[in-house]
């Protein structure tokens, strides 16, 4: 177990180095000279030179790369170019709102998706099944934007069930008052693809021999689905959830933008709009590390759940 962990952590190093080089090439080379932008229209050459020196972009590229590597390793990405706020601080304060929205989304969409997929798998092959699948395809072809625009208009503006947008300092109020409408949007959008996917997982399990055995001993179809199929289909389902887990931390960019939620996703969008490179770099690298750690955690959990897999 320990050796497995050490080897996997060791393997992360080249990937992390690659991510750093990719981000570095993107922002320090493709991105152009940041000083020109920061100095603005009245670009006094001396001032531009000063800014370049303060950012370290007048150094040779290997020094810049070393500086970036040090930033990553110490988790100190300096300050935002736009607001001069410490990037580390941006992270810590924006993560809360993002999770307030995304965790309920994750739980709701998974539970509802699995239950509905089981229900559809129950009536597989019928006309109802076919109609639901077509409905799912149509629902998936409408842009996420349209769902948000219409839901915000209908439930927020016309019916007034929820506030159109907003956020407060009180976590409980955020969760109960401001989060429900964005959560509703996200769940509505993700249900169709989830039902399709989870249904196919369930159908795959229904082909297995143990299902035939269960039928032969007289179990009802519902019992087979809930007791046998669900437990086996949970493995691919949880894999799917786990691969999407890193996305939870950046949240949905669109939701946060539409509903003015001060989360990480909106921060990234604003950073892209303002060419605020330190923030984007920091978020990209941190998310990459987080993704790798989550993947490792999932692997460990697999081995805990399935004794056939070994820590080889």
């Amino acid at each position: 177990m320990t050796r497995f962990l050490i080897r996997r952590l060791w393997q992360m190093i080249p990937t992390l180095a690659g991510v750093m080089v990719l981000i570095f090439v993107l922002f320090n080379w493709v991105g152009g000279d940041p000083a020109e932008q920061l100095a603005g229209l009245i670009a006094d050459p001396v001032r531009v030179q000063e800014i370049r020196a303060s950012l370290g972009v007048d150094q040779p590229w290997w020094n810049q790369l070393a500086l970036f590597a040090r930033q990553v390793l110490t988790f100190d990405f300096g300050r935002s170019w736009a607001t001069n706020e410490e990037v580390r601080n941006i992270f810590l304060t924006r993560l809360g709102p993002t999770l307030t929205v995304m965790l309920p989304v994750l739980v709701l969409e998974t539970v509802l998706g699995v239950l509905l997929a089981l229900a559809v798998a129950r009536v597989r092959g019928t006309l109802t099944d076919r109609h639901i699948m077509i409905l799912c395809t149509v629902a998936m072809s409408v842009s996420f934007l349209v769902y948000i625009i219409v839901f915000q208009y209908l439930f927020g503006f016309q019916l007034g069930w929820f506030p159109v947008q907003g956020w407060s300092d009180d976590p409980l109020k955020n969760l109960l008052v401001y989060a429900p409408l964005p959560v509703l949007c996200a769940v509505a959008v993700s249900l169709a693809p989830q039902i399709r996917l989870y249904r196919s997982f369930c159908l795959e399990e229904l082909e297995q021999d143990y299902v035939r055995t269960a039928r032969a001993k007289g179990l009802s179809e519902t019992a087979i689905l809930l007791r046998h199929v669900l437990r086996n289909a949970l493995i691919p389902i949880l894999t799917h959830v786990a691969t999407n887990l890193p996305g939870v931390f950046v949240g949905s960019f669109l939701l946060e933008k539409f509903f003015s939620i001060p989360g990480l996703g909106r921060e990234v969008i604003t950073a892209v709009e303002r060419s605020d490179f330190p923030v984007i770099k920091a978020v990209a690298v941190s998310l990459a590390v987080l993704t790798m750690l989550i993947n490792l955690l999932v692997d460990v959990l697999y081995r805990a759940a399935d004794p056939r897999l070994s820590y080889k």
Partner: protein
Amino acid sequence: MNRAMRAPAVHGAGLRSGLLALAWGRLRRDRVALVAMAIVAAYVLLMLAAWSGLVARDWSREVAVSYAPPSWAAGAGEPGTSTPAGATPGAAGSGSLTGAAAGTPVDLTDIDPLAPRYAEWDRRAAELKTTEQARAQTLPMGADKWGRDVLAKAIKGTEVSLFVGLSAALLATLIGTVLGAWAGFSGGWVDDLLEWFYSVFTAIPGILLILAFAAVLRPGLVNIIVILGLTGWTGIYRLVRAEYLKHRSRDYVRAAEAIGASPGARMFSHILPNVSHVSLVQLSQHVVSFIKAEVILSFLGFGVPLDQVSWGTMLAEAQAELVVGKWWQLLAATVSMAVLVTAFSMLTDALRDALDPRLRSETRR
């Protein structure tokens, strides 16, 4: 030698029909697939027509009154609010300068340094002819805030969105297939290197990678294609690589090697035809996801430039319009996108079923 072996296969297509011919036969029996294909083909024709200027060339002309409602729902837009007087540029442009100055209670002629020239400017303004353009009260699909035809915008948006989706998917498929073939066929250090490359690109969540690219590249049609292509190849690479791993030691590849086919020839003229169905299905699937991504990027302002229209920029305008009850642009963009994407998704499913019959039992029953 190579040619001699391939020749009978070409002539005897009826006897030993190829993968694609078999798939086409299966596809032709699938009515849903045929309808979907017809819709996609119609959209592609529309894209070509708009691109060549046959239709929707004047999408940016202001041909109707501001927020002219669709003709089939003329009663829907509240009359009166739909035609603000100041919105017509003719009225705003012809207002005389002195007339506006005379309206002010205090006479500023003494201190106004521009006062002596007002008369001259008025005379010169009178010389210019402002032709009052007849503006339509309704349009088939309504008009936007500036009186531009929403239908023409939707057609032009179709051109941009579909073109971006197709080109980016082609680029991603090309990158993914070539790299996947190379890695899977070569193995060894090439495979290690490309696998490392893959792990780097997949370590960063997809949308964040797209935004990171968007942050350093300016909005533009070519750039958005490059962004989507460069960030979207990983899934295709993975699948193609797996296929090549499977195929590279099969008998027919070894036979080709024995008769002296070079590695390049084995990779591309022997194995590729046998795994191309994977790329084809992926291509189709990526068109759908790239169209969706382009719409979102353009909505955020990181996609097409301001002087072009896409479904994403239409939705961006529609958000504000909906609050004042002008729903037609939202409807036009949503429906034109949903029809295409639904058809394309169904075509993708049908393609997969036709090209890989083994999967059929699992996905459809």
